[in-house]
Structures are given as structure tokens and as C-alpha cells.
């Protein structure tokens, strides 16, 4: 594991963002944030509420534009303007709010915006059967074979909805999966299940970015590297193997650094 992570840096990162700045009006949400993700690696993005984690992943996913900085995918300028651009470049996102349509069923949510359709002569008729087969395939791979494909997802439990959102992200075989707070609403066992799912994705060579507040369990145990953000910028980069939850929390709230600065 350690050997692998040492070798990582000689490869091209899947994603490299440097010095990203982004303001919402007068509010500077990102003030020079950076992140790199290598194949097979799980990077945790941690920080206090409002640190800019969600904003950074939304920039990555093409939801927000950014004001300045460099964004490269596999060594080439990303040039991502919309969420579809990001999808096409192999970046899939599971948003904090899940971004599901409650009135649609699991299959419709999985394929939303990218339905398998017939020719435009018939008004792009959706091939429901084909979608259903693919959906079943992915869900079975995630051990969710029992999930109803025809109930509106608004009628489902938080864990089921989370799983549908994750299933949607891996449906199109992405290179990178971004997950914003994937375990926040989940029971302990459901969170464990998500962790092992994420690890199995990384083992297939995907790069994973996970935003999480679950420092003591999920972040230190289930990730490879931890990027700590504060006030829209990175303040520390830690190896998950080498740190404890307390150390991460200190970096987040700035305990250590203020000591260092004072000293």
C-alpha cells in the first residue's frame, strides 16, 4: 500500500486542480484551493462547514465555473463548462443533496439526461427495457438486487436513495467518482457498505474524491490521503495511514498551525 502510494506521484494525476479561486459575489468561497487525484486512490476532502469543499467538487463537476486557477484532466486542460462536459470526460458525481428526482423511479433517475433512446424520428423514444437491464446489472453488482425499479425514489429510505445516487455515478464507467458526504445520512452498517463499495471502485483503478465529516471512522480508515481545507484553501495534506482522527481535526480547526505561527 505504502509502496503504491509512493509510486503514485510519478504517474499523471487523473485530476489536477491548482490554485482555484471562486467567488459568489463578495463571498470568496475558494481562495486558491488545490487537489490532485491519482488512479486507484481515495482522497478525502475535509474541513469545517463552509470551508469550500462542496464548492470545490462542484467546480470539478462542472456545476460551477471558476474565476482563476488551473484545472487539468490526465495532464490536459479540462475545459469543463457544464456537468455534461464533466460526464463526458469521465467525472461522475454523487452530490450532497443526491440530486434525485423524487417523482421518478430508480431506473429513470439512474439514466436521467442520458436515457437509452431510439431515433429522433420517433421523438427519441426511451428504451425502457434496455435501461432496466443495465440498471439491474449495476444494482446487482452493488448487492442491491432487491431495490424496486418502479417505485418513485421519493418513497424510499435515505440509504436506498444514497445507493441509487452512487449507482448512477458508476453507471457510465467513469474514471473519477466524486462523493459529497456519502455516509452522512446512513446507519453504521450502511456506511460500512458504502466504504467497501468505494474501495472496490478504487481497486478497479478509479480515482475517488470523498467529502466527509466522519473523520474518526470513515476518513482515517477508508481513504488513502486527506486534504484539509479551511476558508477556501488547502491547509494540510495527510496520509490517512499515518494520522489519527485528532490530528485531522486539529488541522481542520487550525489548532496546530496557530501554534506554529505563534511559535
Amino acid at each position: 500500500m505504502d509502496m503504491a502510494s509512493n509510486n503514485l506521484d510519478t504517474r499523471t494525476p487523473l485530476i489536477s486542480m491548482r490554485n482555484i479561486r471562486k467567488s459568489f459575489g463578495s463571498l470568496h468561497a475558494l481562495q486558491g484551493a488545490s487537489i490532485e487525484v491519482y488512479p486507484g486512490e481515495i482522497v478525502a476532502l475535509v474541513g469545517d462547514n463552509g470551508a469550500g469543499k462542496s464548492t470545490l467538487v462542484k467546480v470539478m463537476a462542472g456545476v460551477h465555473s471558476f474565476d482563476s486557477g488551473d484545472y487539468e484532466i490526465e495532464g490536459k486542460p479540462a475545459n469543463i463548462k457544464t456537468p455534461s462536459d464533466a460526464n463526458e470526460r469521465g467525472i461522475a458525481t454523487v452530490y450532497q443533496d443526491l440530486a434525485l428526482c423524487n417523482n421518478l423511479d430508480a431506473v429513470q433517475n439512474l439514466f436521467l439526461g442520458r436515457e437509452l433512446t431510439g431515433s429522433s424520428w420517433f421523438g427519441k423514444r426511451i428504451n425502457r427495457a434496455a435501461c432496466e437491464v443495465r440498471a439491474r446489472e449495476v444494482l446487482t453488482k452493488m448487492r442491491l438486487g432487491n431495490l424496486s425499479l418502479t417505485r418513485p425514489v421519493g418513497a424510499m429510505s435515505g440509504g436506498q436513495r444514497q445507493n441509487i445516487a452512487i449507482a448512477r455515478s458508476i453507471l457510465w464507467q467513469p474514471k473519477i467518482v466524486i462523493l459529497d458526504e456519502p455516509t452522512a445520512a446512513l446507519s453504521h452498517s450502511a456506511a460500512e457498505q458504502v466504504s467497501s463499495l468505494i474501495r472496490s471502485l478504487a481497486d478497479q483503478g478509479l480515482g475517488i474524491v470523498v467529502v466527509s465529516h466522519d473523520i474518526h471512522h470513515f476518513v482515517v480508515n477508508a481513504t488513502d490521503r486527506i486534504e484539509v481545507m479551511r476558508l477556501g484553501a488547502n491547509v494540510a495534506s495527510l496520509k490517512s495511514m499515518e494520522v489519527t482522527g485528532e490530528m485531522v481535526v486539529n488541522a481542520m480547526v487550525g489548532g496546530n498551525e496557530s501554534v506554529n505561527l505563534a511559535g
Partner: protein
Amino acid sequence: MTALMTTLEAPATPKLKRRTFGELLTTDLRALPVLVGLAFLWIFFTYQSEVFLTARNLSNLLLQSTVVGIMALGLMFVLLVKEIDLSLAAINGVTAVLMAKLIVEFGFSPWLAIPLSILLGAAIASFSARWVSFVGVPSFVVTLGLGLALNGIQLLLLPPTARYGLMGTGIEHIAQTYITGLWSWTLVTIGIALYALLIFSNMHRRRQLGLPVALLTSAIMPLLGAALLGAICVSIFNQHNGIPLPVLIFVVLLGLGGYLLKETQFGLSLYAIGNNDEAARRAGIKVPVIRMYAFAIAGGVAAIAGIISASRTLGVGVFSGGGVGGGTLLLESIAAAVIGGVSLFGGRGAIYAALLGALVIGTVQNGLNLMGVENEIRLIVTGVLLIVAVSIDKLIEKFTGQKSF
């Protein structure tokens, strides 16, 4: 490994249990309350008036319901994306007046004037959509203002006599054409055949991919139902004059609309945007474009309804499009859609809503007329029915604990 699998899957099993009646009421059987209500109204009026259930009166009832039904059908597309278009009645009026002006004053052929006014209706409504998307003003404000402006333009377009007569222009044929005999049966057969083609193509796809097929509920029952309904309607129509052309137009629009909403990517995006436009945007759906098409459809369809009205009244005038402010035409179109089960909060409603809602309103109008009740009462009853319909919906949600989507 097997042990792990079972522990993982055990909690999920209870969720596979059969759906309760309550859940069905909020999903597949959503039309049931309206159908029951409609049946109630029909039984009531049958007792009140011997004339109600005659072929002649039922034909009239359907004919009377078409304009509101078509308006509701168009409006539905806008309501689905969580917007509203309060200018649809004005579009209905102004496009009809323009069509009449082109024909009467400028000698246009109806074959040119009709498509022009439909296109104009679509263009006006899509203009509202662009305004809503790019400026960010709520659609009810934009379309309220636009509606008033269009009312003004409608008055300006009218001649000093305030009326264009359309007798002898060819437009009157729309309302006066009836399809009878062999032709009417051929049309029903074609309609059912198209429906069957759609159902069997879906079943064929599922079979090929090894998915389960519910032959009885997804093919035989809907097809038998449609065939029965079609046969009953046509025999009633044929006992009178035949299928009125406006009714046929309504049915064709219902078919097209149903196909769009249920089968196509466009239709699905409407529902997605209505429920969660941000999720739709992140899924790569071009929300402003879809929204614009939804408005354009509503505008074009409103123009079609306007042309049919003009043909039925043999002319256009101040009264076209429900008169200034949209009058009862606007209110009844919105009411029809909502009574039929379309949500004003987006993302909910099937195509039959336009038909059922318009039938409820048409039935009240027709039945009370037969009973010799004044117009005032009709308005009161329609208003109360609207409130009752929406309340029943809410109460079902409340008592079954199921949220409708």
C-alpha cells in the same frame, strides 16, 4: 460470502411486499377519484334530466368540453415544469383574431392562416419562457402582463365593428364536419392499432432482454379498455351526427401528448425539471430549452383551441379567448388540468388529466344547463369541485401516509 450476502439482503426483503391500496391510489390508480367523481356527476344528472344520457346530448357534452380540454392539455406541459402560463387564453384569442383578419381582410387561404396562427401562438409562449429563463422573473408575472398586452393587441386587431364573421371562409367547416359510418370506425381502428403497436413494441423489447412481461395488465387490459371505450364513444357519436372534427382533433392531440409525456426523453425531462430542476440541470438536461418547448407547445395548442372556438362561434371578436383577462376560459383550463390531477407545483400529472378535467367541467356545465340552472350556479359548482378535487388528493396523501409524486 453467502453469509455476508444474506445479511446484506435480509433487510431489503420486506420492501418487496405488494403495494397497498393507499400506495396504488397515489401512483397507478391516481385517476380513480376523478373517475368516481365523474361517474357520480353522470348518475346525478341522468336522474335529474331524461335528456342527459341521450346520444345527442353526450355528443354535445364532448364537443363542449373540447376547447377547455385542449387548453388544459397545452397548459399541462407548462405546469409539469413547475411554471404557469396565464397568457394562454389571450394567445387563444389573439391568434384567432389574427387568423380571421388574415383571411377576411387580406384574403389568405385558411390553409396558410391556420398554421401561421398556430406558429405565432407557439412563438409568443416561447418568448415568455425565454424571458422567464434569462431574466429570472416568475412565469406567472411575465405571462400575466403578456396576457393583458395581448388582450390589448386583440382589440386593436379587430375592425370597428369589433367582429370578424367567418361564415363562408372555410373555417366554419372545422366545427361543422362530422365523421360517420365506415370512416369513423376506420379511425378508431387506426387509433387502437397504433396503441397496440406501441404496447407490443415495448413488450417485444422486454421479451428480447429476458425481462418479465405482465401480459394481462400491461397489454390485454389497456387494449381491451381502449377498444371498448372507442367503440362506445363512436357508436354514441354515430347515433347523432358522427364524430365532430374538434373532438377528433382533441383525441389526436391527447394521443400525441401522451406519447411525448410517457415515451420520450423530452417528456421525462419535463417531469424531472418539475420535481427538481437543479438535479435535471446537473444531469445534463438543458432546462431552459426544454422549458421553452413546453411553453411553445402550450402556446401552439392554445392557438388550435382558439381556431376551433372561432369556428364554433362562426367569428371572432372581443369575446375570443374568453374576453379581456381570459375570463372563464383561462380559469376553467387551469381548473380542468388541476381537477384531472396535474400538480401546480410541477412534476405530476398524466395526459388523461386534460380529458378527465375537461369532462368534469363540461359535465357540470351541460348538466346544470339541462336542469335550467343559471350560469352563476355553474361557476359556484365548478369552483367547489376544483377545491374538492385538490382536497381529496391531499386527504389521500394524509390518510395513506403516501406522498404522491
